[in-house]
């Protein structure tokens, strides 16, 4: 299925689009370099996830093209349940790449920037230097494609010393399938700054084949504390391949929070490079797979500096015919002495047709470190179910209670109320 478009045709087509968009020369050059590698680079390989069987050509070089017409739902219907209507804070909603709703941008404190990355790059060509330095485009074919074609996504900059606690929420909705999505987010947190960002990815349930390749790159300055939440609810015919990576500076803290609740085919990697001494990063993930979902999640923590710490926890629940894979990778490089990397993952299979795999990996090239992992895959606890039902509670309600109890240790750690609230509402709706 994954025959690739001839590189010359793709590059020429793309080039025309970018020039028409008046992108900076350096940007156009970066894109051509990436597209020149597209054909030769391998399709990414993942144990347990053979994405070459998915439709990897369900995209167009620009978003107006090839979109198969029509959907039964508009963006409001799709996004409604995920929006906190009474919420304060910044909210940007993009539907099929176009900004359709915004709140709170005008009231941002001085110096904080939240805008479309394309606009940001247009205004400050120096930003191009940063693109794909944390997530190199030559890691695989899809990243090269992304680097060549990315058009959506947001730039957030929190200046040095600024604390902005109300979450900055960015919602992407796909209502028309076929054109593909290439979303690139770039976050810069200045020294000692603090902020919370929530990315939400949604699409119409009846969407046609649609490829999404996404990248989030975050630069976390010395002593900064940044939380990034990612909620994703993608439909069956969507194939989503995403890499989210932060570069965490000295004494800085980066918390990743993941809520993956769709029934699409998703392969995502999330994590941090701990490059500053005393830096820390956590990743708390909750995955609920429904229908024929294929949810492949990797939490990768790379300890490059001394006394760096990481902690990743995941709870996954697979219902229906869902398949879940969770990889925890803790890599401690030589020289990162005094580091501590912990991981704990638990997956639950709710039906005989569901499957789940937990793959913990500790790669340790340094002696003086602490490392630990705990992984389990199992079925719902029969004794708990019996206990609850013996008080008159129906099987369905009892199962829900047990699953809530299972997810609770991770949900309770989600550091932002509104993020937790959103994830809990979605779980409640999706749980059978």
């Amino acid at each position: 299925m994954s025959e690739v478009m001839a590189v010359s045709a793709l590059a020429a087509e793309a080039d025309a689009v970018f020039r028409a968009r008046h992108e900076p020369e350096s940007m156009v050059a970066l894109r051509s370099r990436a597209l020149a590698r597209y054909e030769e680079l391998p399709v990414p390989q993942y144990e347990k996830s053979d994405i070459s069987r998915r439709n990897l050509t369900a995209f167009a070089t620009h978003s107006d093209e090839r979109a198969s017409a029509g959907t039964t739902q508009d963006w409001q219907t799709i996004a409604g349940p995920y929006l906190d209507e009474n919420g304060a804070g910044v909210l940007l909603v993009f539907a099929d790449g176009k900004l359709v709703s915004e709140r709170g941008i005008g009231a941002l404190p001085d110096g904080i920037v939240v805008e479309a990355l394309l606009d940001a790059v247009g205004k400050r060509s120096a930003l191009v230097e940063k693109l794909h330095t944390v997530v190199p485009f030559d890691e695989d074919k899809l990243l090269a494609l992304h680097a060549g074609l990315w058009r959506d996504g947001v730039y957030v900059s929190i200046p040095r010393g600024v604390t902005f606690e109300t979450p900055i929420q960015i919602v992407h909705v796909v209502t028309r399938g076929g054109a593909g999505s290439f979303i690139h987010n770039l976050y810069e947190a200045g020294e000692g700054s603090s902020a919370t960002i929530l990315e939400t990815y949604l699409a119409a349930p009846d969407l046609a084949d649609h490829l999404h390749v996404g990248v989030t790159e975050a630069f976390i300055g010395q002593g900064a504390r940044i939380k990034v939440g990612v909620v994703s609810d993608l439909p069956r015919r969507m194939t989503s391949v995403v890499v989210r990576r932060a570069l965490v500076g000295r004494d800085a803290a980066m918390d990743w929070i993941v809520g993956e609740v769709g029934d699409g085919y998703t392969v995502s990697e999330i994590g941090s490079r701990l490059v500053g001494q005393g830096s820390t990063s956590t990743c708390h993930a909750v995955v609920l797979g429904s229908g024929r979902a294929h949810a492949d999640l990797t939490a990768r923590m790379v300890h490059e500096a001394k006394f760096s710490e990481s902690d990743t926890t995941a709870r996954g629940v697979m219902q229906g015919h869902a398949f879940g894979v969770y990889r925890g990778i803790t890599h401690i490089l030589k020289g990162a002495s005094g580091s501590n990397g912990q991981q704990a993952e638990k997956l639950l299979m709710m039906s005989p047709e569901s499957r789940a795999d937990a793959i913990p990996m500790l790669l340790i090239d340094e002696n003086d470190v602490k490392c630990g992992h705990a992984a389990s895959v199992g079925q719902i606890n029969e004794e708990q179910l019996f206990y609850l039902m013996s008080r008159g509670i129906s099987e369905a309600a009892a199962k829900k209670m047990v699953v809530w109890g299972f997810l609770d240790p991770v949900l309770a750690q989600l550091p932002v109320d509104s993020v937790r609230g959103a994830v809990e509402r979605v779980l409640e709706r999706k749980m059978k």
Partner: protein
Amino acid sequence: MSMIPELKISGLRASVEGKEILKGVDLTVRGGEVHAIMGPNGTGKSTLASSLMGHPKYDVTAGQVTLNGEDVLAMGVDERARAGLFLAMQYPSEVSGVSNANFMRMAKNARLGEGNEVPVLKFHRELLQKMKALSIDPTFGERYLNEGFSGGEKKRNEILQMTMLEPSIAILDEIDSGLDIDALRIVAEGVNTLRKPEFGLLIITHYQRLLQYIDPDYVHVMMQGKIVRSGGRELAEKLEQNGYDWLKDELGIVDETVEAGV
């Protein structure tokens, strides 16, 4: 509109993983009555309780169980509870993520049925009152269901649930194990407040001490997966003093566990 409930067990046989454990149990418990089941370890007492409640591990292979004439064995676990059966378990489960109080309110509303839900405030007033009567600290309402409760706290919580749910027939499996002397008295008082013609009780215990507080009308002894002897409270006293050997001698039983039963 008071009704005298009746739980009727006849010829009940049950196995776990293909091994027969209950080998024909006959017993009838009516409202107003207190029955005690005693018997050595591993003779099938908890299995009887679990089978009556419908634990999925236990396969009932023969016999009947009816509650007020209705076929209990045809009901799901939750339906049995809603029909008025209650089991205070020997080892109650811990469930995190749901608060004790919310859980009890859901259970209560399930028992009352749709449209008859108890108002939230009324429920909490009643809950606090009953917690007080059982000397349970109010903070236990907000804690996750049984999570981190001590053995004795779990037992008290079972009785709290029973008094909140007002079943018509309750089975208490070793409710006295793990309770200190004061707690035993408090729990027994809690149970005694429920005694009335609309409520029947089946108590599984190893100790006569509980029966000093909750006076039984009938005492049964279980061995090899069957009730082998029934009597009044004097039977419990005799067992307390003399153990089970005299009874085994009388019955010609060498090994009382279910393994040996025919």
